[in-house]
């Protein structure tokens, strides 16, 4: 299991060609690394949000397009094996970096015991109290 990779370098994004999805494995002190995915077409569609505010009034677009899985599941590990490193994000880089931040924030909430659906709906949602002057 030796490789020429710097094993502690941040993991790259992965691309699953069959499903046309980008995959990201959340970092952090989690006892269970989470695998997030998003359709490439959704990354393209949301390219402009990288230039807008992070917090939204309603569910963030990433919250409606992001999938979350555990590496404990056989199909998830098989899917990960079928990926290749997402080489040059090019113009999508900013959006993917933003998505990565969203996934990290989501992972933290899940690790704190929040249910998945509410976490997806409310991560990066501007709360009224936060909006008060």
């Amino acid at each position: 299991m030796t490789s020429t990779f710097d094993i502690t370098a941040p993991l790259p994004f992965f691309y699953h060609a069959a499903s046309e999805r980008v995959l990201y494995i959340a970092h952090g002190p989690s006892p269970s690394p989470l695998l997030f995915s998003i359709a490439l077409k959704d990354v393209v569609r949301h390219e402009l949000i990288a230039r807008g505010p992070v917090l939204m009034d309603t569910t963030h677009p990433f919250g409606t397009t992001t999938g979350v899985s555990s590496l404990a599941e056989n199909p998830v590990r098989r899917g990960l094996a079928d990926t290749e490193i997402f080489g040059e994000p090019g113009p999508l880089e900013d959006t993917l970096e933003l998505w990565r931040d969203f996934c990290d924030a989501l992972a933290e909430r899940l690790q704190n015991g929040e249910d998945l659906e509410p976490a997806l709906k409310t991560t990066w949602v501007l709360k009224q109290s936060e909006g008060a002057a």
Partner: protein
Amino acid sequence: MTTDSATLTHPLPFFHHAATRRVLYIAAGPCPLVFSISLDDVGRHVPVVDAINKTTHPFGRSTAVGSLAADEVRRELADAKPLEPGPLDETLSSWANFCDDVADRLNDDEPLADALDDTWVLCPEQDVALDDDEPTISAQARVDVSTPPERRL
């Protein structure tokens, strides 16, 4: 996509890669690392009584580390199956603790070979008396007394 968050965040099991007879473990940390050890070595180290050793721990000589960025690591993980509970559970739990400690060192930028060689190896600087009035000798310190003088600081 899993919808049950409790399942999502449940600690990952050990995995067994049948073709190589190796057990895989994914350590937590800023960068998830895949550790592996052969089942033969796990069986050879049962029971692992002393966590701290004076020389490289047996786990340090038999553990391999890989990154999920490597194709072969992802393929091995895909071919592996969750390991059923068994008589090696206690040793595997100890090994997982060892891997977590190695992962901490790697994430602190320690070279891999050094981390594997030195994790769970008794260091003289660990012999710190916490009570000035009544010095006590910890179990680790007692072990260290038997260390040849040339190996002490």
